[in-house]
């Protein structure tokens, strides 16, 4: 994308005023998004991103900027204006850029650019039909499909010069069911850092029927009655609990500033003994996986919590200088417009020894949160919330009536200690995670877990 010699020249310019590290991140990205509403194709839009970002570090101070113009003149001008914000003498750092090849964790066979719009829209139509035809109570279905081919170049004054391709595809449906004037929605997506072959391997008909079924069930459901419950959170997207309640607070973004409830707790017990939590960016073709992170470093399988003990934070290069903690291959940015920082990839609880059936059977009274929605956390206080999109009551060890409108709240430090059962049925859900460096694809995952003593909100009356 940008020749090695040119990168070398620009990076040298960056260091002239005393910077001790400089980096170029260039990208050329093509995104398409399609929408099918009520059986008609209502959107087919294309977006191209084309920009180069430069950052200079001195210690952990950072100066950064970007431009859309890849010419040498433009990049030198940017490098010069950024270096003016760094004060000092040239440290005389010498480096030679060496071309590196990224690992091969994610690869696309049916690349987005190799398919026509019609071929892509066919996947949406199949999903639409399955979802819409499930029941007369399904009053509307909106299917969305996005694909993205991101080509990146990362070069830095440690001598790194690496190019990588990412292909993100994601297909989803949102079903609206209407029963007696009660409109409820359900949605789900399939996504991967992969080509369109991902959708060939999935049973789109069953996927659509399950979404429709959830919407219809919720339209018939009673309102959740608020209170303190034992909550069984199902596998897959249920992993949003770990993502929100804990791992955001393990990101260097908040830990390096001392702004996390988990600061200074490495080696200490922060979760119940049965809890092992992992962030793994190396899972083949998974939505949150990468061949290399946005600093050009290989992604890792990072064990964050092992048998309840905090083992690692998620750390990028700049924060590693501050925290005296090794980098974890977790540096990510939405695109060149955001400065990179430590983020999650695919985050999940490791499987436990219980079975799903046993967990239900052993729960006398509680809430079964089958499908979770999104949530948020305040890393300073550790207080989190998330929505239950599809819930059921558990009574005398059996799943009984559906309930809607439940919201779970709690504090991250407490909830991890209150997990008392973990099943063996690990699976994943796909989300977009928004934080300091923008919105990025991340997978959340877990086996079914049981949590004691959670505050559940709802509109129902006792």
């Amino acid at each position: 994308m940008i020749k090695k010699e040119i990168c070398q020249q620009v990076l040298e310019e960056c260091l002239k005023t005393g910077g001790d590290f400089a980096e170029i991140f260039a990208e050329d990205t093509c995104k398409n998004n399609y929408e099918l509403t009520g059986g008609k194709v209502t959107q087919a839009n294309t977006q191209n991103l084309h920009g180069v970002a430069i950052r200079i570090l001195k210690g952990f101070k950072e100066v950064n900027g970007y431009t859309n113009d890849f010419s040498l003149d433009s990049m030198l001008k940017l490098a010069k204006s950024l270096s003016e914000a760094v004060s000092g003498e040239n440290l005389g750092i010498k480096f030679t850029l060496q071309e590196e090849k990224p690992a091969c964790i994610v690869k696309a066979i049916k690349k987005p650019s190799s398919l026509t719009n019609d071929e892509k829209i066919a996947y949406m139509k199949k999903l639409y039909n399955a979802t819409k035809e499930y029941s007369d109570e399904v009053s509307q279905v909106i299917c969305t499909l996005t694909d993205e081919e991101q080509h990146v170049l990362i070069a830095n004054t440690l001598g790194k010069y690496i190019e990588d391709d990412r292909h993100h595809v994601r297909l989803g449906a949102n079903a609206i069911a209407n029963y007696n004037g009660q409109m409820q929605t359900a949605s789900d997506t399939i996504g991967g850092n992969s080509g369109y072959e991902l959708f060939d391997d999935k049973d789109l008909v069953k996927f659509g029927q399950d979404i429709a079924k959830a919407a219809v069930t919720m339209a018939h459901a009673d309102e959740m009655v608020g209170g303190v419950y034992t909550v069984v959170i199902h596998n897959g997207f249920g992993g949003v609990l770990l993502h929100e309640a804990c791992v955001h607070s393990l990101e260097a973004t908040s830990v390096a500033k001392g702004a996390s409830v988990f600061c200074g707790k490495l080696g200490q017990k922060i979760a119940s003994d049965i809890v092992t939590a992992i962030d793994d960016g190396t899972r083949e073709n998974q939505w949150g996986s990468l061949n290399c992170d946005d600093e050009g470093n290989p992604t890792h399988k990072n064990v964050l919590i092992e048998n309840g003990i905090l083992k690692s934070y998620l750390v990028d290069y700049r924060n590693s200088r501050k925290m005296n903690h090794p980098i974890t291959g977790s540096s990510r940015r939405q695109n060149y417009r955001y400065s990179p920082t430590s983020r999650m990839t695919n985050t999940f609880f490791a499987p436990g020894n219980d079975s799903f059936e046993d967990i239900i059977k052993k729960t006398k009274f509680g809430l079964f949160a089958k499908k979770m929605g999104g949530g948020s956390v305040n890393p300073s206080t550790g207080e989190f919330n998330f929505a239950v999109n599809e819930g059921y009551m558990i009574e005398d060890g059996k799943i009984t009536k559906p309930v809607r409108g439940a919201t779970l709240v709690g504090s991250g430090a407490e909830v991890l200690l209150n997990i008392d059962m973990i099943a063996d049925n690990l699976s994943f859900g796909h989300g977009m995670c928004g934080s300091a460096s923008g919105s990025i694809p991340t997978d959340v995952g877990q086996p079914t877990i049981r949590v004691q003593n959670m505050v559940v909100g709802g509109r129902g009356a006792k």
Partner: protein
Amino acid sequence: MDFQKLIKKAKEEQIEDIEVYCEENKNLRIELFNGEVEKNSLQNSNVVSVRAIYNGKMAYLTFEDENMDIEKVIAKLKENANSLTTLEEFEIFGGSESYPELPKVESGLDKVSLLDKINLLKETEKIAKGLDKRIVLLPSCSYSEAHSKTTIVNSKGLNISKSTEYAALVLGAVAQENGSTQDGFEVKVVLKYDELDPKSIAEKAVKQAVSMLGASGVEPKVYPLIIENEAMSSLLGGFSSMFMGDAAIKKLTSLIGKEGEKIMQDCVNIIDDPLMPNSPNSQPFDDEGVACYKKNVVENGVFKTFLHSLKTAKYFKTKSTGNGVKQSSIVASGINLYIDKGNKSKEDLIASTKEGLLITDLSGLHAGLNPISGDFSAQSSGYYIKDGKIDRPVTLIVVSGNFLKMMNDIEEIGSDLFISPSGVGAPSIKFRGLPVSGK
């Protein structure tokens, strides 16, 4: 890229109409931590979005590479248009008869040196640290400014531009005492640099953090509830899609066919005012070149109109309300959408409450609400009110309700209208009763 050449070429290629929307941005951002500049960003971008009507369908293409080949742009637009099967009709607009003039504001941003901007941050941090011993950390203290110029050029002969400039100061403060940790966060966005006041920003963030120390839950039951202005505006923001033309086309709002009907209490007026002074969102015309004007969405409780872009207006055989806003395509959106204020101060609302809650923060609304049904359940914090006075801070409770039902269960609307930087606003509102869950 030469836009006139693109337009000419497109017409030669049987494109019916074409429009270029060009956005030039120049941003600065400075982050301070413990008295030192930690990050400093200089950002320049130039984004071109083209939309075109081909075979009656509207396609969109956005690009940043100014060397993009014109032929490729046209081919991609045609391919995208050919994929559409929607029955919607589209229009590219030749321009309104006249455009309102917004007052000219001298931002003064370019007259202040970088060093002075850094000093402003240092001062903010220093004041905040000195205000209360229980403040242990200021995890975010940042200054940002944006200069943007948008130009719309199209084959109907329109060629207009609009600019905005604003500065923002952000402060986050963390307070600790007796094992309790709480934080406060204040954002101030201004059109004139001189209006940034470090003292008031520091005081607000610090007060918010400190006053929440020792917060606990409440007995779960139905409480009279005052939702403070900022929290109320985020609630309106979460449900604003119910008033939008796009939601109406997709049947994702319960307000279809209810124009002219009473949907809220008499005292409720919901207004969209794109010409409001002192808002960074104010603009003379929308992103389709349609002149902006102030309008009532809800007037004395009666639903008056959906907000429309050209497309949604055509679908409902009405006129655009000048609310076409550029996202990945043009969608109808509020520009400065707010619930109008009442007469009583927030203090009066509290004083008239024997037992109740003042809710200052609603979190997780992006996930915990259903914009179609109006239902929501949100993690909340605030204060317990006893005998007309604030008694103690409360946190980790869940407030649940239905937006439309609530707007029919108002006891009193406050006078403290707040407009968020994203252009959604509300005063504090007291509701007769809402269910609250917690430990």
